[in-house]
Every structure is written in C-alpha cells, then in structure tokens.
C-alpha cells in the first residue's frame, strides 16, 4: 500500500484496482453530456444517460467491493496535482474497506434515487430536466472523489464539490429567490467548515509535510506530532465536519436545504453528503484516538445536536422539515458514536440511516407528488387508503428509524447507545431520551399524514393517486434494505461473529476493546425497545386523528426552532452588513478618499493664497527681496557662527 512513485510502476498497472478511476469518471461523463446537450437531448435519453452511467459505476463498485473483501486494497496514484518544494500532493485514490463500503452506499442509493427522479421530475422542461440530472451526476462524481481520495486534498476537492452541487440543487428552481437564499446559506455555512478543514490540512503540511493518509497515519509520523497539534488538527477537522454534517453550530442550513427537489433531499441531505463528516472522522480515526479532548467535544456536540434537533422536529408541520431535523438528529447520534470511539457503529448507522432516511424522503416525495406539491402535514391525513405502497414503505422506514428489532435502525442505534453507555451512563440517558423523541415525532408524522381523515382541499383529494412504478420500486427496494440492512452488524450477544461489518472494517478502524456484561447489554436493549414502543403508542393515541391547534408557550419556541436563525442573523449577519455599509459609505469615501482629495483641495487653497503675494507692485517685490536678503545675511553672519 505504498504510494507509487510517478504512478506507473509495473505492479500497479497489473493491479486491477488501478481502474477505479472509471467509477467517478462515468458520472462525470454523464454530467458533461447532460449538461452540454441538455437542449438537444430528449427526456428519456437524459434519464437513460443519468441512470445508466450510475448503474455501471454501481456495478463497478460491487466488483471493487468484492476485490476489497478478497483483501485487495490499493492506492491508485495518477498524477501529481500540486508539487511545490518539498510538498507533493498526488492525485490518488485509496480503495480500502471504508471507501469501498461508501462506494456501495453512494452509487447504490444514488442509482435508486436517479431512477426515482426520472419520473419525479417529469414536469420539468427538458433543459431543466437535463440540468437536474447533470447536477445529480456531478454530485455523485464529487461524492466519489470525496470518499476515494487518498489524501486530504483530494478529499477536500470532493468535499467542496458536493457543497457546490448541493448549492446548485437547492437553488434548482432559481426563480424563487428564497430558494436561492437557502442555497447560498448552505454554501456559505459549508464554507466556514471548509475553511477549518483547510487550516487543518495546512497544519498537517506544516508539521508533517504530507497530506496523504498512508503517510500521515503511520506511527513514525504520528509520533512527530505533539498532543497540542493533534488536538488542534482534529478539532479543526471536526469543525469542518460540523459544517458538512449539519452539527451545532452550523446545522441551520440543512432544514432550509429542503427547498430543493425531494429526491435531492433524499440523496444529498439525508443519505450521502451529510455523512461526509462521519466518513472523514472515521477515515482519520487513528488521529482522533490520540485526541481524547476532541473526542469528548465531539460526543457532547453530537448529543446536543441530536437532542436539539429532535425537540425541534416535535413541532414541525412541514413533512420535509420534520425529516430534515430528524436527519440532523440522527447525524448527532452518529457523532456521538464517533465521540465515544465507536467508529464502526457510526459507519453502521450511516449505512442504515442512508437506507431508511432515503426511504422516508422518497416516501414523503411520493406523498408530496400525490398532494400536488402540498407539504404541510396539517392538510393531509388518511392517505393510507390511497397510497398503499407509500404508506407501508413509510411505516417500515419509521419503524426502522425508531429502532425496533429486527429492523436495521435498531442494531445501529443500539450499538451507538451501548458505546455511549460505556463512555458515560449520563450520555446514555440523554441519548436514549433523544431516541424516544425520535420515535415520537416520526410516528406523529406518520399518523398525522396517513391516518385520520383527509384535511386537504377537494381537488387535492380528487387528485390523490399512487405514484408510478419508477417511484414505487425504489421505495420498495429501500424498504427491504431498511429491514435487512441491520443484519450485517448483529451484536456479539446474539450471534458470535455476527458483527460482519466490524470485522470487515477492522483493518482500517482500530477500536479499543470494550467489555460489558451480556446481562447489561440485554437490559439496555430491552429498556430502549420497551420505551420506544411506549412512545409509539403514545403518539398513536395523540395523533390517530389529528386536530389542528396553535402551538403555545414552549411549543411556540420549538416551532420557531429555538430562534437560532434569528439569533445568528442578529449576532453575525447584521453586524457584518453594518460594517460593510459603514466602510463603504463612510470610511472609504469620507476618510481615505477624503484624505486623498483633501490633499488636492489643500493644494488649490495654498495656490490661491500664495498667488496673492504676487501683488503686482514693483515696490513690494523689491521690499520682499530686500527682506529675504537681510534674512539670509543674518543667517550667514550671526546664526551659522
């Protein structure tokens, strides 16, 4: 696994994995074709290209995965991206367990969502349709770069690339300025994180002179780093992650990002992009294991985010907003896991979450589709009769996220809770509470949407219909995955060696062994499951047939998301704008330019005064001459002596 020198050593050319560049290349091609030919191509052609390229790379990813499973991990080096002085940054891909797993998730879920989109976006004009698919492909491309990059810089390229795509896709319907605002907000908040990421990279370069994983994560290099450096670097990287993965304090962009088309929300803002932060930290777990302080920070931030988002989700009425906040909350769980050193658990949850959250989003998409663009759940209800498949799949999704065995969510969330318990029972308690809230608001959503009687307008009711197969099939597939997805990580307590995922990832992820008695483990599982079921029943009793009611008191605070956006606006945005106005109107014009022009004005004034000396009278001229003569004589004879 040593980085090749120059990239064309024989053993590397022999290595089949050298061909992985095809995986990102195909979506890139799709992007170019669809992007440039969006006027010429017809919709079917566009969707064919969009999905086809992705299908192929999905197939390739499976092949790669099998290769890796067969123990063939490889760093494919292509060319020197930047090489200055001692610093050399190659353009290289790293194919190992972690990346191959993510490859599967991205291409797989991505493919499904492409298929889904091809019918969901039917109403768009061809060129916008093409634009949509080109963006989507571009996103897949950058996401693949992100996970395949063999060093932090290539990773960063993808990192910013996905940010760009999310910007483009949130603002896809660019006629609506508030959508564009949301897009800009997403991009800028990501930028803040990215800056921290960059500084971390620079710090690494300054200390180690290299950024490639293979070299950074070697014992010799890590030994060079002082604890302080490691803490700073890891913290900075984590700040980067908070931007991308919507953690406190940079999470507010994600709910707004729901402005984009629903499949986009499913793909980017639920399944893949937002998990980039987790991937990055998991990727550099060796570094993090050396920075306990950072780990604590991560754990607390993650937990706080999980709780905060969950509380907010309780009172949201926009179906997508609820899902968005639940995403934030779930991401919080993942970070909690990371903070507790349970990297595998985090990755596991990323996977399962990708399944059920994508499922939920697509389901909501199907609902919105059916409701003719209506997103407010207060105007829904009783949809279960009309949208059977959607309802069932949605239900599965909810069960999965709520964490009821044997659905996938249960295993991953359980692993996380366990790790939290091991770190600190208090953490566990809070996390459990958040999990319960999750169950509650998810089922609130489910019941208000599907049960009870319809609360929308009549023509909406008349218009209600089940979505076409192109949309339902992905739902079904994802539903199946949401059910069985958890079986790759069955805890030891049930089956010895059930934790396939853990084994698979063990080469890249080193976790300290933890030991809790089986009884405790059983007890915890039972507790959580029981409470969750109780919560579901409570929600059922409360929202079986929903009555519209104004939120009051605390509920209002929650409905307004703890006024965090308002706070940011007042604390940061407004001052910056004020400063800009001040500099623009006062400082630049009056002060600096004032000085410059003042010199000119002074010149004029001096000139006007000075020419009065030229009185035009010979007498005064001579007088002045004589006086100056006297002065000079005095200087010469009486002063200079």
């Amino acid at each position: 696994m040593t980085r090749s020198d120059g990239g064309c050593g024989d053993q590397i050319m022999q290595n089949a994995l050298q061909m992985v560049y095809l995986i990102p290349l195909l979506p890139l091609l799709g992007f170019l074709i669809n992007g440039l030919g969006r006027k010429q191509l017809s919709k079917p052609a566009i969707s064919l290209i969009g999905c086809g390229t992705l299908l192929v790379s999905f197939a390739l990813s499976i092949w790669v995965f099998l290769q890796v499973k067969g123990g063939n991990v490889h760093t494919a080096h292509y060319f020197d991206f930047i090489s200055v002085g001692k610093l050399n940054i190659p353009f290289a891909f790293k194919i190992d367990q972690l990346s191959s797993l993510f490859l599967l998730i991205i291409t797989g879920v991505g493919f499904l969502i492409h298929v889904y989109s091809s019918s969901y976006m039917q109403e768009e004009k061809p060129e916008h349709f093409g634009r949509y698919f080109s963006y989507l492909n571009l996103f897949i491309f950058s996401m693949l770069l992100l996970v395949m990059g063999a060093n932090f810089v290539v990773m960063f390229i993808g990192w910013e690339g996905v940010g760009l795509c999310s910007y483009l896709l949130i603002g896809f319907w660019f006629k609506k300025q508030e959508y564009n605002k949301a897009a800009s907000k997403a991009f800028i908040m990501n930028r803040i994180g990215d800056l921290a990421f960059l500084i971390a990279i620079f710090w690494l370069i300054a200390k180690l002179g290299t950024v490639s994983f293979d070299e950074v994560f070697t014992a010799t290099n890590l030994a060079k780093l002082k604890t302080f450096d490691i803490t700073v670097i890891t913290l900075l990287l984590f700040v980067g992650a908070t931007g991308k993965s919507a953690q406190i304090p940079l999470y507010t962009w994600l709910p707004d990002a729901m402005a984009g088309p629903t499949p986009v929300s499913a793909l980017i803002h639920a399944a893949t992009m937002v998990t980039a932060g987790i991937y990055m930290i998991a990727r550099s777990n060796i570094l993090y294991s050396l920075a306990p302080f950072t780990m604590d920070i991560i754990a607390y931030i993650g937990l706080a985010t999980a709780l905060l988002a969950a509380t907010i989700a309780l009172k949201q009425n926009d179906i997508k907003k609820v899902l968005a906040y639940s995403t934030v909350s779930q991401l919080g769980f993942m970070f909690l896991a990371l903070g507790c050193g349970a990297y595998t658990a985090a990755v596991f949850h990323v996977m399962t979450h990708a399944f059920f959250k994508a499922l939920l989003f697509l389901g909501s998409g199907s609902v919105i589709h059916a409701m003719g663009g209506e997103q407010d759940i207060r105007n829904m209800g009783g949809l279960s009769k009309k949208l059977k498949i959607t309802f069932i799949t949605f239900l599965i999704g909810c069960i999965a996220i709520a964490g009821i065995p044997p659905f996938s969510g249960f295993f991953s969330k359980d692993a996380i809770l366990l790790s939290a318990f091991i770190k600190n029972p208090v953490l566990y308690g809070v996390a459990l509470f958040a999990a319960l809230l999750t169950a509650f608001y998810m089922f609130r959503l489910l019941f208000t949407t599907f049960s009870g009687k319809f609360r929308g307008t009549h023509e909406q009711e008349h218009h209600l219909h089940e979505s076409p197969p192109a949309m339902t099939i992905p739902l079904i597939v994802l539903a199946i995955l949401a059910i069985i997805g958890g079986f790759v990580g069955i805890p030891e307590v049930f089956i010895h060696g059930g934790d396939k995922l853990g084994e698979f990832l063990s080469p890249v992820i080193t976790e300290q062994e933890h030991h809790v008695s089986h009884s405790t483990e059983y007890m915890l599982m039972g507790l959580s499951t029981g409470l969750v079921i109780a919560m579901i029943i409570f929600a059922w009793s409360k929202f079986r047939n929903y009555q519209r009611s104004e939120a009051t008191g605390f509920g209002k605070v929650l409905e307004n998301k703890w006024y965090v956006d308002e706070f940011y606006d007042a604390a940061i945005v407004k001052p910056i704008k004020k400063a800009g106005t001040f500099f623009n109107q006062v400082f630049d014009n009056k002060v600096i330019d004032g000085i410059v022009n003042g010199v000119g004005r002074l010149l004029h004034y001096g000139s006007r005064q000075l020419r009065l000396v030229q009185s035009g009278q010979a007498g005064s001229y001579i007088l002045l001459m004589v006086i100056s003569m006297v002065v000079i004589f005095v200087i010469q004879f009486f002063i200079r002596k």
Partner: protein
Amino acid sequence: MSITQILFWFLSIVAIFSALMVISSKNPVHSVLWLILTFFSISGHYILLNAQFLAIVNIIVYAGAIMVLFLFVIMLMNLNKETEPQKHKWLRIAGAIAGGSLLLVLVAALKDTDIKHQQALVNTGGIGLIKNLGKELFTTYVVPFEISSILFLSAMVGAVVIGKKE
C-alpha cells in the same frame, strides 16, 4: 587731523546728507539737484583718491549728461510736488526699516574684515591718470571695450524702438 581727513569727512557728510535729501524731498526737481550734489561730492572723493580721470568723467557723464537727461524728462512731464505720488505711510516706514536693517547687517558683518587697517587715502600714485588707464583700456581691456560698444548699439536701437512714434 590732516586736511585730507577733514575733506574726507566733509565730503562724506555732504554726500550722505544730499543722498538723504534725494529720497526725502517731495519735489522731483529738487531730488535731481540734490543727486547732482551727491555726485559732485563723490567726484570730490575720487580726487582725494587720485582718480582724477574718473572724477572728471563722473562729472561729465553723470552730473552732466545723465542728470540733465533726467531733468529734461522731469521738466517735459512737468512733474512737481503736487503730481508727486505718495506711498502709503506704513509702506514707507517698512521700506526704511528694511533698508536700514540691511545697512545695519552689512556694517555689522563687515566692521572687522581682515583688511580693515589697510590704508586707502594716500597722496601718492598715478594709476588714476588718464595715461595709465588709457594704456590698460586699449591693451588688456580692448575686448570688453568693444563689447561695450555692442551694449551701446543695443541701447541705441532700443531707444529708437521704444521712442519712435508709429
């Protein structure tokens, strides 16, 4: 105190007094007359300094030709006390102070020069005689002499240009 010294003091006082009168008398004609007196006293000094030739020339050229010219002009314009323009009082004072301070400064500066004890006034020596001067003028100083003719020419042409009626 020899006779020459007495003469020196006398002439000096006359010169300075008449010079002061030149600048102070209201009537231009009077100033001219006072100025002529000044020139005469200066010529007296020349004689004391055995510069006989210059003394004569001074009287002929200055007191004679030039001052008469002035007198003619003044008469021609019949300037007199009434037509005489007066400077503003303060300006006059300022001028007087300026000139006076210049004198003061110069005198103060030059009162102890390294040559202050050298004698100027002795009755010997004939360099001032026309013979010597002429010899010098037409041998060593012939070139400047010719050049001065150019000066006169230009002055003449100038007078023509300015004076000729159109």
